[in-house]
């Protein structure tokens, strides 16, 4: 870890995106996580995705709870507002922020402790309400800041650093999100940028609750032999079900694939997700089948990754609540306060 300020100078010929910005413009402060932490790779993937999507950083807000993962929003997008709330309660703060201004994009970053334990209830209800946001769990199966206790996503067969056994079954957050009604559910690996970046780009283009469970090994407390959240275990047991290509609006598709092996889904901003099916039987629009698939791999001691479920038909929170098409935070006295005559007629009705 380091507490040195990041140097501001950079190479003059760094590539620029459609807004004329470089990747450096999307970075944040220097990370204070352990060297090699998976979370830093996720931050880098977010930076890359936002850069490639040409997103204006100030039109995005970063939300988090408490824990190592929740610290990371400081380490990317320094021109975005951020909100590091209380443990497990990011979903409610993000919901409120979303109601106030639905025109911003929201990235929530949470951990397995923050989401699968203390914040399980809030997570479930944010999913159920279809809050328009990208919710990333940086999942390492352990409580890092308090030095390595098991979390609720730690698999039953996974041993602690000193060989301790785990008595309880793990919670599969991706399966949970599908069951609760999230309209975009993916699982990635912090060490696989090729898979993660397009998935984040697609999630940020999706309207509704997009959930990505990112297996992000804790190099200090959960990267040993016997752990099922270690780099090594994951590399050996990951099974990609789909490979995701993100195709920006107006971008042409050049590669050709065998019929039936790809699914193109048009997202709300008219960009496309191209899913290359690595498992021919997989149908990402069928939630029951997706769940079955995840569980089948789990039984085999494998972890299914990729974009697992996608539903572009469901509406998001603002539409469900039938709210006006302008952000509530832009309305002033004239739009919000009835006049004295209205109040006088209310008085009259109370006499």
């Amino acid at each position, binding site marked *: 870890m380091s507490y040195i300020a990041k140097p501001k100078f950079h190479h003059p010929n760094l590539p620029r995106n459609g807004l004329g910005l470089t990747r450096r413009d999307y970075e944040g402060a220097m990370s204070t996580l352990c060297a090699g932490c998976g979370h830093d790779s996720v931050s880098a993937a977010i930076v890359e995705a936002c850069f490639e999507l040409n997103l204006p950083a*100030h039109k995005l807000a970063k939300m988090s709870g408490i824990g190592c993962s929740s610290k990371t929003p*400081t380490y990317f997008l320094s021109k*975005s*507002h951020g909100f590091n709330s209380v443990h497990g*309660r990011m979903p409610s703060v993000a919901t409120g922020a979303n109601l*106030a201004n639905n025109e911003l994009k929201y990235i929530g970053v949470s951990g397995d402790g923050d989401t699968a334990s203390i914040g399980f*209830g809030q997570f479930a209800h944010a999913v159920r309400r279809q809050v328009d946001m990208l919710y990333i769990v940086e999942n390492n199966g352990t409580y890092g800041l308090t030095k390595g206790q098991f979390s609720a996503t730690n698999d039953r067969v996974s041993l602690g650093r000193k060989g301790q056994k785990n008595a309880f079954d793990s919670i599969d957050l991706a399966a949970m999100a599908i069951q609760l009604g999230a309209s975009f559910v993916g699982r990635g690996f912090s060490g696989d940028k090729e898979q993660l970046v397009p998935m984040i780009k697609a999630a940020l283009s999706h309207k509704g609750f997009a959930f990505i469970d990112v297996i992000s090994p804790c190099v200090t407390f959960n990267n040993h032999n016997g752990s099922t959240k270690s780099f090594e275990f994951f590399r050996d047991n990951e099974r990609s079900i789909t490979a995701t290509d993100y195709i920006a609006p107006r971008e042409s598709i050049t590669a050709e694939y065998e019929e039936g092996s790809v699914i193109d889904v048009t997202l709300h901003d008219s960009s496309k997700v191209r899913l290359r099916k690595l498992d021919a039987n997989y149908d990402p629009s069928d939630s029951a089948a997706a769940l079955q698939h995840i569980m089948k791999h789990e039984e085999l001691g494998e972890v299914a990754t990729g974009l697992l479920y996608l539903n572009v038909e469901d509406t998001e929170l603002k539409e469900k609540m039938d709210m006006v098409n302008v952000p509530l935070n832009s309305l002033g006295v004239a739009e919000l306060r009835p006049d004295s005559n209205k109040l006088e007629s209310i008085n009259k009705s109370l006499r």
Partner: protein
Amino acid sequence: MIVNDFVIKFANVNGSGSASANALFAKAIFRMGVPVAPKNIFPSNIQGLPTWFECRVNGNGYLGRRDGIDIMVAMNPQSWDEDIKAILPGGYLLYDSTFIREIERDDIKTIGIPLTQLCNERFTIPRERQLFKNVAYVGALTGLLDMDFDVIKGMISEQFRGKDKLIAPNIDALEIGRNYALKYFDCPLDVRVESSDAVGDQILIDGNAAAGLGCVFAGATVAAWYPITPSTSVAEAFESYCHKLRIDEETGQKKFAIVQAEDELAAIGMVIGANWNGARAFTATSGPGISLMSEFLGLAYFAEVPAVLFNIQRGGPSTGMPTRTQQSDITACAYASHGDTKHILIFPSNPTECFDFAIEAFDLAERLQTPVIIMSDLDLGMNEWTTKPFKIDEARGFDRGKVLNAEQLDEVERFGRYLDVDGDGIPYRTYPGTHPEKGAFFTRGTSHNEYAGYTEDGSVNVRVMERLVHKFNTAKELVPGPVFGQDRQDSTIGLLYFGTTAISIPEAMEMLDGRDIKIDTMRIRAFPFSKEVEDFIDSHEKVFLVEQNRDAQLRALLVNECEIDPAKIVPVLNYDGSPITAKCIVDLIAEALAGNVKQVESNTVAAE
């Protein structure tokens, strides 16, 4: 002959449909221009348990609760014995004489009306027979008390406009009772109602509805809440007024968002998220909800995010008496959350203030960038009060506080979210999405420097914490100030009170006057306390402080926050769950002045 001065109580079975008939009776008296204070005394139950409706009628406008019942309408066999006992000697008992009952008191007058029999003869559907019994006793009362029958008939027509089929049977039911009373009893009784102009332009509304309406006029757009008695009707009133006043005319869409959250933690979390993002948002809750919201309140205090919270206090501790009233969350709210945290409290005394203070609270929360808690209670929130009409000042806009827009940010060399630029302890904030390059900051509950950066530097943390104290002192001048009693008597004795106790004070003062006890009064309306409160205590030898809790919580707050001599402040306490009466206040003060002070536990605690 007693005119316009009595207490009538209706003893009913919860869920039997009595509430609307009882409300009709109270409103009819109000429509006759006579001040009235109806109170529902209800169990935490949906159907079956005893419930009461107590209504004080007082031409002088003394509408605090008064002990002793002049007229008891005893419709519930379960509570019959207890109800009979509550009648004052010489008072009346109105009962359903279809059933033969033993009445063991000979010092009361009885009015037996065969309500069940009369309704069974007239109505055929069982539910109608049940419901119209209630309307029939109201009809009987119009005869017995000489009430204006046209007024009540008019109200029935108004109530069922559009459902005209229901008008005739309701009026029938009224007449069944009225005609029986006129025929068999000497009407009017020696207690009666007489039309008056004492109500003036006042309105009849409960505090929760007033608070909900106030939020509409305050420009609140987001409400997040979790159902809990007695606060539920704040959110429900907001929703119903929003449907009338906040639908976009062109699209039919909502200029508001109301979320029934999964719990109180989520409710306050949403409120904080929305306020952080520049929408006016509020929540409403009661005791247990305050406990659950405490962590988030600490975050809002430290990260300086506005929030408005209505706490409709009920009887504690724990689940306590959810359907009874108290003022027992003062310390829990003033210091909600761990660490050195304190919050602004506002104490409304009537529905008009629930409305006004809702508007005030949003301005204060945004001006001061901190939570503001409005401390109502069940008596105020869930009962209808005779209260002054609502008014707004159209010239006054919303005070959104210190928020920088893009142009202003361009002029700032380096934006510091927690910099005290103006020396009042209040920094500047920005909404997300304002400026592409400047003004972004990281809101956090961790210790931070003036630029919102994380720090573990103790001296920086002390600086931030000191500024928060400075800001709290600034608040003293901005919150609603205390109100002095109208007749300052320059006594050596003072009396402090707050919230719903106010309704009993004028009557208590008159009673004390009768005993030749002169007292100066001051009503506290907010925490932090302004200097006037301290001066009032300083300028009196002894100060009584009336509270509806066990531990004299406001006294503890005064002792803790002000440079005053604790021994001077004598608690006057009532916490049985019923609204405090003038008689209770007077008796406790008189007793204390006679030297028989009952030592309250908290005296010693507070004095340490």
